[in-house]
């Protein structure tokens, strides 16, 4: 596996499957009386958050703590960043503290990439601007595999039809999901108003459309994206009400979905805008499950990046015995 997790596009299919299979095993830790493993004892994970986040930060924190790592939370508010410290100076500080991994969220696309050149530890991208959010894509893929994949170890998402709906333009979740899901063999369709597609969308490994109703009847997974008011500095659609009427998922649209299809949302939701409350709370919604799965997937990422001498290599040719190692 790569040393940093910056983009979902850096993961090979074997890398991605190794993460998902590892997460499957680690998910069982949540059911145990002692929800902790000693594996990352003595390692330090820094959560470096320049942008507001609750669930991602807490999820990474829980994941690191379940693996017994020491966690340092650094949020830009109330830190020297507010006093004008640069990203590089912050990186030097972290380096001096001996961070083994830096989990970074930043409003600027590419910030984790820059950071990776300045610190010795592994950098995990927890969302950079409208660029990428690879662990969200991993937890989404994990949730799809658990819900729709049957017995799952070693399997991809081949042939699974996934429709991602909403603000593609500003969505790092959409970009990471398109890259990862296509690596895993899923067929991804993006649906949005024309104004909310990025210009370069033609180069993405997915189909696109403007009509939600047409897409719903032939999809196994529908993922609703949040309307990101804070990033919208122009009029991308006439009104929220109109957006909701054309691209919101309500009970009537749910009826168009196949029986087995699931509804996903990366959160936080705007209830009544992109998703109706009754849909979000319905039995086919995986929204709460996604949060729980997020911890397992992030544990897997931290373990595979930090658990050994160097990041894990997916063993495609070695027999299972190879995993037992040498001298224990």
């Amino acid at each position, binding site marked *: 596996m790569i040393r940093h997790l910056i983009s979902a596009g850096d993961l090979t299919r074997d890398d991605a499957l190794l993460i998902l299979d590892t997460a499957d095993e680690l998910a069982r830790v949540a059911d145990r009386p002692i929800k*902790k493993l000693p*594996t990352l004892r003595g390692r330090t994970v820094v959560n470096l958050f320049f942008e507001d986040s609750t669930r991602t930060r807490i999820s990474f924190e829980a994941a690191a703590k379940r693996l017994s790592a020491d966690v340092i939370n650094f949020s830009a508010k109330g830190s020297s960043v507010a006093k004008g410290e640069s990203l590089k100076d912050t990186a030097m500080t972290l380096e001096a503290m001996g961070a083994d991994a830096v989990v970074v969220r930043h409003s600027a696309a590419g910030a984790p990439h820059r950071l990776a050149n300045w610190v010795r530890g592994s950098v995990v991208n927890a969302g950079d601007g409208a660029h990428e959010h690879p662990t969200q894509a991993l937890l989404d893929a994990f949730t799809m595999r658990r819900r729709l994949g049957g017995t799952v170890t070693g399997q991809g998402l081949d042939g699974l039809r996934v429709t991602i709906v909403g603000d593609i333009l500003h969505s790092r979740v959409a970009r990471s999901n398109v890259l990862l899901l296509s690596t895993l063999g899923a067929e991804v369709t993006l649906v949005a108003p024309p104004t909310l597609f990025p210009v370069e969308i033609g180069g993405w490994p997915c189909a696109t459309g403007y009509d939600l109703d047409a897409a719903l009847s032939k999809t196994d997974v529908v993922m609703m994206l949040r309307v990101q008011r804070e990033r919208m500095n122009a009029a991308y659609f006439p009104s929220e009400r109109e957006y909701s009427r054309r691209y919101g998922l309500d009970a009537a649209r749910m009826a168009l979905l196949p029986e087995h299809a699931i509804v996903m949302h990366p959160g936080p939701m705007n209830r009544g805008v992109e998703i109706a409350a009754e849909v979000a709370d319905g039995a086919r919604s995986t929204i709460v499950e996604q949060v729980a799965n997020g911890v397992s997937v992030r544990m897997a990422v931290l373990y595979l990046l930090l658990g050994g001498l160097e990041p894990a290599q997916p*063993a495609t040719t070695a027999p299972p015995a190879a995993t037992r190692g*040498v001298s224990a």
Partner: protein
Amino acid sequence: MSMPAGSPALAGYKPVLDAADIGRAVTRIAHEILERTRGAEDVILLGIPTRGVPLAGRLARCIEQVEGRPVPAGSVDITMYRDDLRMRPARALGHTDLPAAGIEGKTVVLVDDVLYSGRTVRAALDALNDLGRPRAVRLAVLVDRGHRELPIRADYVGKNLPTSQREVVRVLLAEVDGQDAVLLGEARDQAGRRDGTAARGSHEAPATKGAQG
């Protein structure tokens, strides 16, 4: 016995136990477990992946045949508890599968193929500690090859096999390898095996597995 020839990886290994020997050893261990636990009451067999798991299954079936009562068998993965994790790239996890009743208050018999340094067993004891509080923990191994590095011993041994540290013990089981055999060979790469830096080629890997325990 049928020689596991054919595979170039096994060239130079000499057979120590054949399928019938392994069958007899498993049967004897099953009887010893029954004897010392008064009919295997409250006993749980937990295999250590990879080859401890099918061995635990065989012991369970054997005990059931003799006693006419099922004995739960499962597996406990020790990867996250190893003391040499930092010496090699992070590795994939094995499967932990506990019987529904859990291990609380039960007599757990850990099952592995080869007992060598004792470090795997130490890791397994740590893993059990996080899974519950068994009444007692016992250890059953198919082969004890000596050279312990920790104060650990087996309660049930299929075969005591004096070896030198240069040698490699390979256990093959039908469930994993397509045949039953215990083989002894010379390490083909120089030294280094026990410091965690040995070669990780796909053919040498099972051999290094045999070299530990």
